[in-house]
């Protein structure tokens, strides 16, 4: 009997051992975590919203929408998001075309401006614009608009919200369109010129149609961004009761009796809208591949002389730079030097004080916030990148069936607005008793992990694609096992991408507000929350000082990230 059993037993034991190898355990563990992060909160949200007392119900929707005045809110949301997208698209595309295809001077200024969303957190940008365009004492209103004899511009309105959000989004469009114009083979345009078409026709009939895929992508991303924006609707919109989805969700949870079901219903609607946007985009992108012009080759685009349009174009770029960067930063800097905020006059400008800066360091809120932000930034960036390295290996390198599922799951949180994720995580961890993480930093950690997983994945898989498969195979042929070749070949080669991704996540985690604002609890504030609270308390000079220091810190980090990013060729927007 033994003699019969042995030969069949041995392969089976071998197969089992192979199944439980370090490689499979690590890959399986990471896949499970990714699936948990991507699916559980949203699944819970759906369940909590539709199931009431054990059966299906749309009562939450009825209540939420009944109370709100659905019509105006939806109209506001769309007006805001379409308006700001349109503004951002026009500015971004125009500037991108000028920068890539013309001999306009001042290009470095534009590239510097393109990192604005990274270095100026949305909340600071928005607050700075309230300083500039407040109807009563806005700096621009007092010093420019009224001097011209025009009525003051009221920023607390839909046009005001569109202006601020549009300016904040425009660098994103700029980056997307620069990439598209760059990757376009100039000979396509040159052959149109050789066919006798004048420049204007070349632009309309060849350049723009070729850029169409990128343009659609930009439009959709911006509309989704506008829908999920929280800072502008909260800081600007609420002053005059201009409600949109995000501010409603926030309001529902911060009423005297938090309405979780109502917030869930609103969050669900928002999620459906953003998912539709992303789904539509992926459909377009697939079709666009049919006339793919992005060959991956780096073309050196030919630049066209602008002639007499050179100086107006330069003025335009300069104006944009001043409006998008200089004014908000200058305003914050000015506000940080005041004992009590008021618009600049001869008196305030001659009575500057540096006292706000040291004061920040003595503030308990600040101390908490810095510590928590650093902990969360380091922990989530590290965890995301490690997870992404394994997941990217799984997706890019293996032939395992079902690896595309992991890929899609890792990218899924991209669709989920920060505020919706916040609502979802609240519903999960207020109910689940065996993971008592509500009220701790862990819940913020999970939120950041989820939100930044797609970014980490993108960095990791881009660099994974750059590592030839044969480098790993030759390690195997040299006798290295999976773990050895992952540790000694794959990880070292991933390092530049890994570090660039790490810094990127670290940086964006500092400006995260949408999820944090729902998930933090006293003592667990992060820096963006500290700014948010100080704004709510009217401590404008103090928050400005904090903001200026934060921006300085982020500038340094972003500079490092860009240097690394340029080296490995991963240089993408956001």
């Amino acid at each position, binding site marked *: 009997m033994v003699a019969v059993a042995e030969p069949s037993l041995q*392969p089976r034991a071998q197969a089992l051992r192979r199944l439980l190898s370090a490689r499979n355990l690590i890959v399986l563990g990471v896949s499970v975590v990714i699936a948990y992060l991507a699916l559980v909160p949203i699944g819970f949200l759906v369940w909590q919203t539709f199931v009431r007392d054990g059966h299906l119900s749309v009562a939450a929707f009825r209540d939420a929408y009944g109370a709100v005045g659905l019509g105006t809110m939806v109209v506001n949301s769309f007006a805001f998001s379409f308006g700001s997208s349109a503004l951002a698209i026009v500015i971004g595309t125009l500037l991108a075309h000028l920068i890539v295809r013309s001999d306009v001077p001042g290009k470095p200024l534009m590239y510097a401006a393109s990192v604005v969303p990274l270095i100026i957190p949305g909340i600071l940008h928005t607050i700075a614009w309230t300083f500039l365009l407040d109807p009563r004492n806005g700096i621009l209103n007092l010093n420019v608009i009224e001097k011209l004899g025009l009525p003051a511009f009221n920023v607390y309105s839909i046009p005001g919200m569109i202006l601020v959000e549009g300016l904040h989004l425009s660098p994103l469009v700029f980056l997307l369109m620069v990439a598209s114009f760059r990757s376009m083979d100039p000979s396509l345009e040159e052959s149109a010129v050789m066919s006798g078409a004048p420049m204007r026709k070349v632009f309309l009939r060849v350049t723009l149609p070729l850029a169409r895929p990128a343009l659609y992508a930009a439009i959709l991303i911006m509309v989704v961004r506008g829908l999920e924006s929280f800072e502008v609707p909260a800081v600007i919109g609420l002053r005059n009761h201009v409600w949109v989805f995000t501010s409603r969700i926030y309001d529902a949870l911060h009423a005297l009796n938090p309405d979780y079901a109502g917030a869930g219903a609103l969050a669900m609607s928002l999620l459906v809208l953003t998912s539709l946007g992303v789904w539509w985009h992926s459909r377009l992108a697939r079709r666009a591949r049919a006339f793919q012009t992005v060959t991956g080759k780096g073309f050196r685009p030919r630049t066209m002389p602008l002639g007499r349009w050179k100086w107006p174009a330069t003025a335009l770029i300069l104006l944009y730079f001043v409006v998008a960067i200089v004014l908000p930063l200058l305003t914050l800097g000015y506000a940080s030097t005041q004992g009590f905020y008021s618009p600049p006059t001869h008196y305030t400008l001659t009575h500057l004080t540096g006292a706000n800066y040291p004061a920040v360091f003595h503030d308990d809120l600040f101390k908490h916030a810095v510590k928590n932000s650093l902990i969360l930034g380091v922990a989530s960036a590290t965890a995301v990148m490690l997870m992404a390295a394994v997941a990217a290996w799984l997706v890019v390198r293996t032939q395992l069936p079902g690896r595309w599922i992991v890929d899609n799951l890792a990218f899924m949180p991209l669709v989920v607005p920060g505020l919706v994720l916040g609502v979802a995580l609240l519903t999960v961890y207020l109910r689940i008793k065996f993971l008592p993480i509500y009220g701790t930093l862990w819940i913020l950690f999970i939120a950041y992990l989820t939100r930044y997983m797609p970014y980490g994945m993108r960095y990791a898989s881009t660099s994974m694609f750059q590592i030839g498969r044969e480098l790993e195979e030759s390690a195997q042929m040299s006798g290295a096992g999976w773990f050895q070749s992952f540790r000694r070949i794959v990880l070292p080669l991933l390092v530049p991408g890994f570090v660039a991704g790490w810094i990127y996540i670290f940086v964006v985690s500092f400006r995260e507000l949408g999820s944090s604002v729902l998930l933090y609890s006293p003592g667990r504030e992060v820096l963006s929350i500290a700014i948010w609270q100080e704004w709510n308390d009217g401590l404008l000079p103090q928050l400005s000082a904090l903001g200026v220091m934060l921006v300085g810190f982020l500038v340094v980090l972003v500079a490092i990230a860009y240097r690394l990013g340029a080296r490995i060729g991963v240089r993408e927007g956001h």
Partner: protein
Amino acid sequence: MLQVTNLVKSFSEAKGMSRGRVLAVDDLSIEVAEGELFTLLGPSGCGKTTTLRCIAGLETPDRGRIDVAGRTLFDSEGGVRVPPNERGLGMVFQSYAIWPHMNVYKNVAFPLEVLGRKQRPSRKETRDRVERALAVVKLDQLAQRQATDLSGGQQQRLALARALVMEPPLMLLDEPLSNLDAKLRDDMRFELKRLQRELGITGVYVTHDQVEALAMSNRVAVMRDGKIEQVGAPREVYERPGSKFVADFIGTSNFIDGVVEAREGASYRISTEHGVLDVPSDADFAVGAAVVVAARPEHIELAPGVNGSGPNVWLGRIEVRSFLGEVVDHVVSVGSREVRARCNSKVSIPPQTDVTVRFHQEAFSLIPAGD
């Protein structure tokens, strides 16, 4: 040394809705003797690289058995599948796969450093072996150089050293010369051959370049659609192709359809549309059988003017000539067909000249009609 028996490997067809499977390697068996350089030659998609990767263990075959030096590496029936890192074979990749984050020395030392604790050589022995391997490929002066600073040819030799350092029983070479420019490729071809013969390496060499295959191998297997079409010594395969595919893939040939008119031992008289050909052949064809005569252009002689007749002499007219340096190619129209003749550079006949086309007997091989 190497036995591959009834190897089958299929891939699922990813394209379209049909979820069929494509046979990349179709019931293939080969045997390679010790010290032999065995070449798998064929067009892209013929399954030669897949076969090599199955031997390496980088692909898992569907069926079959692979033995190297008396050790079974894969056996679908016995459930044996040795992972690639435990096979101990040397492999040189098409892209060389030099690790860019290590220097030359570290690249070569890697296979020794990742050995299990028991087999791992001492530090000193590692050093000796690495230096010896580098010396063999003449890279010992560059040991501390960063691997990415090497030229293409040097990287190629580094990849070879890395495979050699393990002293593997079998070396797998996946188009190792295809990334080099033409001149360097010629030099490396001789270099690689010299090393292989001197060190007595047993190797399986994959290439789509017939010149490379003929120049380097002890034996060549011409592959097509996952099967071996013909195996033999280079000269044998070149001079006596067994099928139209082989004759066409290795070198160039004129294919002339005909019928066996008479046979006398190993000598055949073939009647064709344009004249009679006397063709020597070992192959066995009955009188009346449809055959194809493959004629190598370099054994076809052209002479201006119309003189001579009889078997193996046709009359034609020059259509095009092209000067290729060492030789001059002529395309001659004979009746409704064209014959390509390759002459030495002294012979150059202007177009529209009437010529006599004389086939030498060594130009011919006799192939069954059909593919």
